[in-house]
């Protein structure tokens, strides 16, 4: 055993597997379901997988091979466990959860192995940077699914991810209509108007010192206020349709844009500004050629903050009154009808939309501020 260096995750997982072996079977026996022998076979296969993975992980094979074995073992175990439960929710016994913990430890070990691998190529390295978080996200879903189904948590409290996925697949037209109403009409309109207004006022505040001195303390203070509270007033003024939601979004996105842009316009160095003076450049030339590019990181910061604020503003405003379509409307009515899977489907779509929105802004930022040290990587 001289060449064996077992990691603590591997060791702990092996111990857990041993414990699980004494707590078998995995699920409460069900005469109608499966023969006892098959169930035992599955359990021992799962335990065997843990041992194989731990031993291979501790041996002197390369990291890629170890990662592959760990990947197969961890996910194979989960597959075995879940297929053992089948559609009989809540039949899991303690050994199920012990083995689940062992599988999770193997996945953790896998993530550790993966993050220690260094690649020469840039693309391979980027792939690895995406793979580890993806693994983490997948395991959140796996543990969610396994615990909910294994422990038989009531559907109303927390539906398993598979049910939510089925719900999304089954109600695409409704979800699409909601996304169109909330995001494409309310959020985008409000976002563009709010950011543009904040930007224009920031330029004005930059031009006139008096305005800047007056607006900045107010802007800083307002950013701490619960602006979302204007939602009921906006709904009263602009009616139930998307205009009122867009108005809330405008107000929510205005101040972050204002404060960040003004801060960004002050970001260019004295030396560069003096250089522009020696060129006898006008205010607008200095603005467009030096100070706006220098402010771009700040402006994009505001755009990113606003991308999440806008979504929140529109959805919350829908709680105060909507036509019979929209994400906030759907969430508040479906929760009343206890259709929890539909609510989760809506949330998943909202999260996806929010991430895409944020991602688009972030990509745009990379393209525009390619010169910035944080993007150049130096």
């Amino acid at each position, binding site marked *: 055993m001289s060449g064996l260096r077992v990691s603590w995750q591997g060791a702990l997982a092996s111990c857990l597997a041993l414990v699980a072996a004494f707590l078998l079977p995995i699920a409460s026996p069900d005469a109608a379901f499966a023969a006892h022998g098959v169930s035992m076979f599955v359990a021992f296969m799962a335990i065997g997988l843990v041992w194989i993975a731990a031993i291979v992980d501790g041996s002197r094979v390369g990291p890629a091979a170890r990662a592959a074995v760990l990947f197969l073992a961890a996910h194979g175990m989960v597959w075995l466990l879940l297929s053992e439960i089948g559609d009989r929710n809540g039949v899991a016994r303690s050994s199920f959860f012990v083995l689940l913990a062992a599988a999770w430890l193997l996945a953790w070990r896998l993530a550790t192995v993966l993050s220690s691998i260094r690649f020469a190529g840039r693309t391979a390295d980027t792939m690895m940077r995406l793979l580890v978080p993806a693994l983490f996200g997948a395991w959140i879903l796996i543990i969610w699914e396994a615990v909910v189904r294994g422990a038989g948590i009531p559907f109303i*409290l927390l539906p398993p991810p598979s049910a939510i996925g089925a719900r999304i697949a089954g109600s695409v037209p409704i979800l699409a209509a909601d996304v169109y109403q909330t995001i494409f009409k309310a959020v985008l309109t409000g976002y563009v108007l709010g950011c543009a207004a904040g930007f224009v006022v920031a330029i004005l505040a930059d031009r006139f010192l008096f305005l800047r*001195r007056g*607006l900045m303390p107010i802007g800083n203070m307002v950013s*701490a206020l619960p602006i979302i*509270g204007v939602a009921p007033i906006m709904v009263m003024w602009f009616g139930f349709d998307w205009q009122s939601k867009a108005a809330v979004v405008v107000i929510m996105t205005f101040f972050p844009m204002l404060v960040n842009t003004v801060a960004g316009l002050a970001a260019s160095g004295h030396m560069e500004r003096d250089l522009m003076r020696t060129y006898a450049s006008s205010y607008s030339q200095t603005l467009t050629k030096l100070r706006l590019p220098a402010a771009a990181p700040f402006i994009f910061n505001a755009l990113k903050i606003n991308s999440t604020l806008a979504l*929140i503003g529109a959805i919350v405003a829908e709680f105060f009154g909507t036509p019979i379509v929209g994400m906030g409307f759907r*969430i508040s009515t479906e929760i009343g009808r206890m259709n*929890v899977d539909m609510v989760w489907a809506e*949330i998943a779509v909202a999260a996806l939309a929010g991430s895409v929105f944020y991602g688009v802004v972030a990509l745009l930022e990379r393209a525009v501020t390619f010169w910035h040290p944080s993007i150049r990587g130096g």
Partner: protein
Amino acid sequence: MTSLPARILPVFAILAAIVAIWYVGTYALNAPFQRDLDRRAGETPTTWEFIVRTMTQPKPTLPAPHQVVANVYENTFLRKPTSNRSLVYHSWVTLSATLLGFAFGTALGILIAVGIVHVTTLDRSLMPWIIASQTIPILAIAPMIIVVLAAVGITGLIPKALISTYLSFFPVAVGMVKGLRSPEAMHLDLMRTYHASRAQTFWKLRVPASVPFLFASMKVAIAASLVGAIVGELPTGAVAGIGSRLLTGSYYSQTIDIFAALVAGSMVAILLVSVVGLAGRLTEKAMGARPA
């Protein structure tokens, strides 16, 4: 350095302009309805009388500033703090949820930051998800969290505080990761030459270096926490809190009440942010920081 009047004067000028625009807006938004009322009553008020009437409607489209001020004053100082029409009472309900959520959120954020700084796997796998977690409109999940927890028998403070927690852990986590990593390589090398253990490096170098970051992010976090608590009060038609005042105001078109609740919420926000700011300044002073 600019003198104090030169800094204060523009702020007051802008505030005065806002109030002036507000009054004009009050007239403009309330006039159509008032005209309608007068026509039905068969009255022909003079211009001045008409303007006064637009400012004194009981349920205006946009209440005039003095109406809001009067309402806030009445509900803050003239009522017993235990009365359920008192803004003090509602602010207190919201404040307690905010503070609880803020405490949870700050603790969680610091914990996550410590994990991320010390465990490479966590750094690689957790950080992208923390950022992604904030693109989920948690406020949209608020109704479900509250209804689901109510089904399990947890009601009152905790569900609201959980929403506040979710909103407030993010700025703290991100700020603390930055703060715990802020010691320069030279200082870290110095600790190594002292043969300092990881724990010693953490407590004697990283933690002190992160304090300014902690307070900066706590200011953001407590404001987010208040928003979480207010929104947490909306969905179930909560009986108390600033959020419930907004909701009842919206049901009965009590615009003055809505504005008064907004003012109360803003007061709480300003109070909280200044308390955190003050605590930060005192802590940094006690730790021997020079004023910048």
